[in-house]
Every structure is written in C-alpha cells, then in structure tokens.
C-alpha cells in the first residue's frame, strides 16, 4: 500500500480508545506525542500517564494493533518520559467526554488539596473528597453533597 500520511495516522490513532475509559481516545488523553516516518518505519512516541498505570502495556498493544490493521507494516513505539505527561495535555473534547462519562475532569490547582470539584452529574460545587485514590491511580473518589452520588475525579497532574 502507499505510505499513509502522518495526518492519516493521527486520525487512526484518534480511534484507539483508552482501555479503562473507552469514551476517550489515546489522542484525547494526549499520550501520543509524536508520529513520524523514519525511513520505512513509522515511529509513534508515547508518554505514559502514570508509571503504575496497568493500562500502559495494553495501550501500547492497542496502538500497534490498530496501525497494523490499517496496513502499517513497520510501526515502532517509542516511550518518552520527559517531559512527563500532564493532565493539561487532555484535549477539550476529551475533557467533555470524561464529564459525560461521569468522571470529573481535572481542575488546575487541585492536585492533592482535596478542594471541591464540580459534580459531573448535577453540576453542584458542593462536593467532598472521600479518598485520594479512586478506582485507578489517576482518579480520586468524591461524593456530591447535593445529589449524593459518588463520582470519580480525574486528578490534576
């Protein structure tokens, strides 16, 4: 097949869902940092979210599988640690999709302060942190004082 353009590859990757939060893609999350052809090899640079994220290995496999499915014969995944991933790299579309999925998107300056974040369900600002660690390392557990629902908050990093 003809060598696909870098733009085409970004489009394909935008269709690779995060294994734990399938409503957002790996591109939404901002973990795909670079796509480029080096000779006959397609090099995709990925920055992991959390070093302890169990999904990291799966994400790598999913990206490679997607590229092969699209006919790329020589994809090569490179891990880049510096600069480290930050929640500021999550796209605005990704943030909106997180919220629609019931996960409060990260709020600047709310790294580990435990300050309230808006409830993704009813929008109330009256919420409280139950635990700094939620269902995965990237999330904290919160509770809404108004609608009484518990929810996950995607921690600001």
């Amino acid at each position, binding site marked *: 097949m003809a060598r696909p353009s870098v733009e085409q590859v970004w489009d394909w990757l935008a269709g690779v869902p995060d294994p734990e939060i399938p409503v957002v893609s790996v591109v939404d999350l901002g973990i795909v940092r670079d796509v480029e052809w080096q000779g006959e090899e397609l090099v995709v640079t990925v920055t992991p979210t*959390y*070093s302890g994220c169990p999904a990291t290995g799966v994400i790598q496999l999913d990206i490679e599988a997607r590229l092969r499915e699209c006919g790329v014969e020589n994809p090569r995944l490179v891990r880049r640690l510096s600069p*480290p991933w930050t929640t500021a790299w999550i796209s605005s579309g990704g943030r909106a999709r997180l919220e629609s999925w019931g996960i409060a998107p990260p709020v600047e300056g709310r*790294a580990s302060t435990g300050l309230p974040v808006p409830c993704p369900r009813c929008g109330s600002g009256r919420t409280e942190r139950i635990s700094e660690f939620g269902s995965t390392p990237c999330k904290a557990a919160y509770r809404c004082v108004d609608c009484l629902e518990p929810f996950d908050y995607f921690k600001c990093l």
Partner: protein
Amino acid sequence: MGAPSPDADLQAFLLRMGDSCLILGHRISEWCGHAPALEDDIAMANVALDLIGHTRLWLELAGEVEGAGRSADDLAFLRDADGFRNVLLVELPNGDFGNTLMRQFLFDAWHVPKLRGLSASSDTRVAGVAQTAVREATYHLSRSTDLVVRLGDGTAESHRRMQAALDRLWPYTFDLLDVDDAETALAAAGVVPQAAEVAGAWHDHVEAALAEATLVAPADGPEHRGGRSGFHTEHLGYILAEMQFLQRAYPGAVW
C-alpha cells in the same frame, strides 16, 4: 541523549531506587483485600501499583547501564538477598495498619525530596524517570502524612500504636538517610542530589508532622544501616522466596 559507558556507581544507585520501590510495593500489596476500610484498601493497592511502576523504570535503566542484557524482570526475580540494595525500612513486616502507615510516611518523606532532586539530574534518563515518579510520590506523601497526623493525634489507642510504630521503625531511618562513596561521587557529578539536602528536607517534614501528630521520635537508641551494602534483615529472604518462586521454579515462564 547519548548512552554513557557502564557505570558501577550509577548502577548501584539505580538498584537502590528500584529495589526500594519493588520491596515496598510488594510489602504493601499484602494489604490488598485486608485493609480496615475499602478506600484504604484501594489506596494501598494504588500506591503499590505506582511503586511497581517506578520499579520497572528504575530497573530497566539499571539493566541498560549495566549493559549485560539483563531486563527489569531478570533483576527483580533472579537476584539473591545479598544482591538487593533496598533501604532496610521497606523490608520490615507490615505489622498493624498504623505500623504500615508509619513506615510509608518515613519512606515517602525521603522519596519525595530524593525524586525532586533527581528530576534535575544531569543524566537525562534519570531525570525522566524521576519527573514521572515524583508526582505520584507526592500523592503518597500527602496521604501518609495526613493519616499519621490523624492517628497520632487520634484516640488513646491509635496514639499508642503510632508511637510504638515510630519507636520500632526509627532505628531504620539511619539506613534510609545513609550515604556512601558511590552516591557522593554521583552527587558531585550532578547526577543525584546532595545527601544532606535530602536529609534536611526529610527532617523538616518528619519533625513538623510528628509534632502535629503529638508523637515523639526516640532521642537515642540503635541505628541500623546496611541496605546499600546488601546486608539485610532476616525478613528480605522471605519476601524474595514468595516473590521469586515462580521464576525460580519455572525459569523463563511467561504469560
């Protein structure tokens, strides 16, 4: 970034970081399904996951620096106790939940300034790992500090247990803050932070938190050292026996 030639000092230091994260991660994963509350159970498992994630990064780099083709798994599963360079504190048994938290607090208070310093390492590979790890370790420290203060300044029973844990663990903090020639040389080259800087930050944080927790560090008593030379407590062998069993019994097993 260029790959420097194999460097024994750096290799030893990377093993110290990786092994400390590995053994503590393994230790606290023992709480999975046993912690006093669901949130604590999940938090403990999450911290363990983070630490195992750090382990992978440090040991991969240790293997790369060594240049003998050993992977992170080879280093984790195929070394004996005297080859491990972890700080002694992390291999001590969990004890009760208060003891586990006190151990975590004393470790986190060292881990965070250490990683902060390493984030500015002159070795870009070291800096990359530290920049990722430090943000997670900061969460760990904020949680363990909060719980140590709440339990220390809690009921008479929780106070008694936290003070007992502090008395039991304090002698091992000398090993935690210990330095050797290899690390002094690395600090001079800007690869790792100055030991005094890390120890100063540790003392500042620990003393302030203990005061708030109404806990008192022992004024004198034994000072244990030896982790960085491979002299461990009797507890490490038992951890390795459990952790390494599969790879030792079925070499090369994968799934």
